[in-house]
């Protein structure tokens, strides 16, 4: 166990700090760490970061990246230092995080040259078209279909839970193109310009009262067949290479640490009956239990980083982050609400509400994350099957499954 980074990395860190100090004020936005949307100032900043090797670091130079070898320690230092300096890390979001790795692995040379460079600079913003109303946990059940007419794919159907759809130029979507094929086999991975006629984006309001997501409707949306990535019908396999990545991104320990600090602040400041909530032994006991979990998740993230550095599989340890992280964040928000007593029910729109309803928002939003991106149920299936080698649910004949409902 060695928690130091070694001299070469400390040099990198020092240079980065210097950069952030001298040029940090050129970053767009004030303190946000990542920006998933486009915009001129972001593109300018992103180009500067790539030039210094601080963004798009592992993307080959020929496609607009910095072309460096992957190094998890460098990645960690970047995350730590940008976070500490509260400076934008440049372009983030599903385009650079999910589409670009997919294209680099499965895309045609043409696709790579067309889409990777503008995505890397933030000039082209992407959204993801995977989930459907009828296919949440069970992505292979997607119904949005495309029929081939000559060189054109004509898409009809509906996607849901697409964040940033309203700001995106492009969507990467899963579309059923081979209706005859078995469930997992008939799906293609398709790149769809968002301004294609027949494509309609509608904001999806969630229980938080805000539209963090969208629904996207396809009515005879026509895109070239050349916009399919990989071979037709291979979309399921292609999508799965990046899905694992998404599951790791959610529930990161930094969010929990931030929330924990916030709860301590709430409990210190919130006075009921002349005592701060921190003086309540019952609430304090809950706080300490959650602190242990927060630190555990931080240690766990370091451990996963350690495995990656050694080039080892993190095994079952790598599968439990989301299940724990979102639950922890939800519980932290729940404690903050309880600490506020009756005041905990206040939401956005009153100055009596602490941090403009942040805690109620987090309480609901984190629950949404527990549910979304693979529900807790699905996470447990994955842990028991991939992690513990337990058998899959035995296949049930469709007739038996349906008749069961009446039985």
């Amino acid at each position, binding site marked *: 166990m060695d928690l130091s980074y070694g001299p070469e990395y400390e040099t990198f860190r020092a240079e980065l700090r210097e950069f952030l100090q001298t040029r940090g004020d050129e970053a767009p936005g004030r303190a946000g760490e990542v920006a998933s949307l486009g915009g001129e100032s972001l593109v300018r900043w992103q180009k500067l970061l790539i030039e210094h090797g601080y963004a798009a670091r592992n993307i080959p130079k020929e496609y607009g990246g910095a072309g460096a070898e992957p190094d998890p320690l460098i990645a960690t230092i970047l995350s730590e230092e940008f976070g500490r300096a509260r400076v934008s890390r440049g372009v983030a979001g599903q385009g650079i995080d999910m589409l670009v790795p997919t294209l680099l692995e499965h895309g045609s040379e043409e696709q790579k040259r067309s889409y990777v460079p503008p995505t890397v600079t933030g000039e082209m913003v992407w959204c993801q078209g995977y989930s459907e109303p009828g296919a*949440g946990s069970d992505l292979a*059940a997607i119904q949005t279909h495309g029929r081939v007419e000559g060189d054109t794919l004509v898409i009809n159907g509906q996607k849901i839970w697409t964040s940033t759809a309203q700001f995106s130029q492009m969507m990467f979507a899963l579309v059923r193109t081979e209706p005859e094929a078995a469930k997992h086999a008939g799906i293609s991975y398709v790149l769809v310009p968002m301004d294609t006629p027949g494509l309609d984006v509608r904001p999806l309001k969630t*229980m938080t009262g805000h539209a963090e997501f969208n629904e996207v409707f396809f009515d005879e949306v026509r895109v070239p067949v050349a916009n399919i990535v990989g071979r037709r019908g291979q979309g399921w396999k292609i999508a799965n290479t990046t899905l694992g990545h998404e599951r790791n991104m959610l529930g990161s320990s930094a969010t929990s640490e931030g929330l924990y600090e916030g709860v301590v602040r709430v409990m210190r400041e919130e006075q009921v009956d002349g005592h701060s909530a921190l003086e309540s032994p019952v609430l304090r006991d809950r706080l300490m239990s959650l602190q242990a979990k927060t630190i555990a998740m931080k240690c766990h993230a370091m451990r996963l980083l350690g495995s990656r550095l050694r080039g080892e599989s993190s095994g079952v340890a790598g599968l439990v982050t989301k299940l724990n992280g979102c639950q922890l964040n939800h519980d932290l928000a729940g404690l903050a609400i309880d600490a506020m*007593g009756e005041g*905990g029910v206040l*939401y956005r729109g009153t100055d009596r509400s602490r941090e403009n309803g942040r805690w109620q928002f987090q309480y609901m939003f984190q629950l949404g994350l527990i549910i979304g991106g693979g529900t807790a149920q699905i996470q447990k299936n994955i842990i028991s099957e991939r992690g513990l080698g337990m058998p899959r649910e035995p296949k049930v004949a469709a007739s038996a499954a349906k008749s*069961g409902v009446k039985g």
Partner: protein
Amino acid sequence: MDFGLSEEQLLLAETVTRFLDERLPVPRVREVIDGDESIDPDAWRALAELGVTGCLVPETHGGAELSLLDAAVIATALGHGAAPLPFLGSATLATLVLRGAASPAVQSEWLPRLADGSARMALAAAERIEQRQDSGVTFEGGRLQGTALFVIDGAGADAYLVAVGDDVHLVPASADGLAIKALPTIDRTRGLVELGFEAVAPADSFLAVGAALDRAVDAGRVIVSADILGSCDRAISMSVAYAMDREQFGRPIATFQAVKHLCAEMVAAIEPARSLLWYAGHSWDEIPEESALLATLCKAHFSTVGHDLVRIATQVHGGIGFTDEYDLQLWFKRVGLSRQLLGGPEKLNAHAAELQGLA
């Protein structure tokens, strides 16, 4: 010996439920909470005919003079319907304080109007539950001064009962120096307000003798619990129906053991809680020496059970349960508000221990 709801109570539940299904179905609830008023005053007045508005008003003042258990039956139905109606604030808390402590003249002035739904009142007594910074009301030289927070169902009330210690002051909504400010909460089916008093002269003042305020708060805790119960019933039935309908991996999710077990856990949690609620409601009228403890434990228990239950229900639903469009969120938030109202679980558990001399 008969533990359980009577024929009349079952009929009452059915009547109120049917009324809400017809007059306040969910689309109408959404219309109300998206509108300017946080309640549906027409529906409220219409409920007077069913004896709902005046269920706790004595017959001599035109009320139905029902038991608190009857009122809890109504509250369960209102929770089940996520009804934007001031049953807790006006028909329970304010009514019981008036009935328990106001002068005959004040009673005669207000109770008939509360009973027929033509007036609504709210009780400003959050300070009795939790004393907070930047709030509190004083009464000096015949004038009220300060701030009262978290006045339940206070939006659109005709008058407020303001507790200052054991004194209660009646303040019409139109009183000079009174500022009424809505407090937006997560649950928009019930409205909290903040009252600001700038040298307000009350229309009347009286002493809440015989622990009238505490008794009203006890009753309020039973009624909130009943509301949570109704919300949970709705969340369970929505979950089961959804699970039977929704298919994943080629079969209804109701055939998945994990989903079935979540539904079973909800039921297992709510049924003994329902029994506790009935007993707590019954004891308020019939076994008053036990009722403060029972109301306190009951509300603490429902706060916990309800809170866990609506999370489980949301989980059974998956993504759709997280949308605004799907109705489950109405109950998720209604329970979220109820959990904190009139004291959260830690507060109430501590109070229950005190009541028994265990603390």
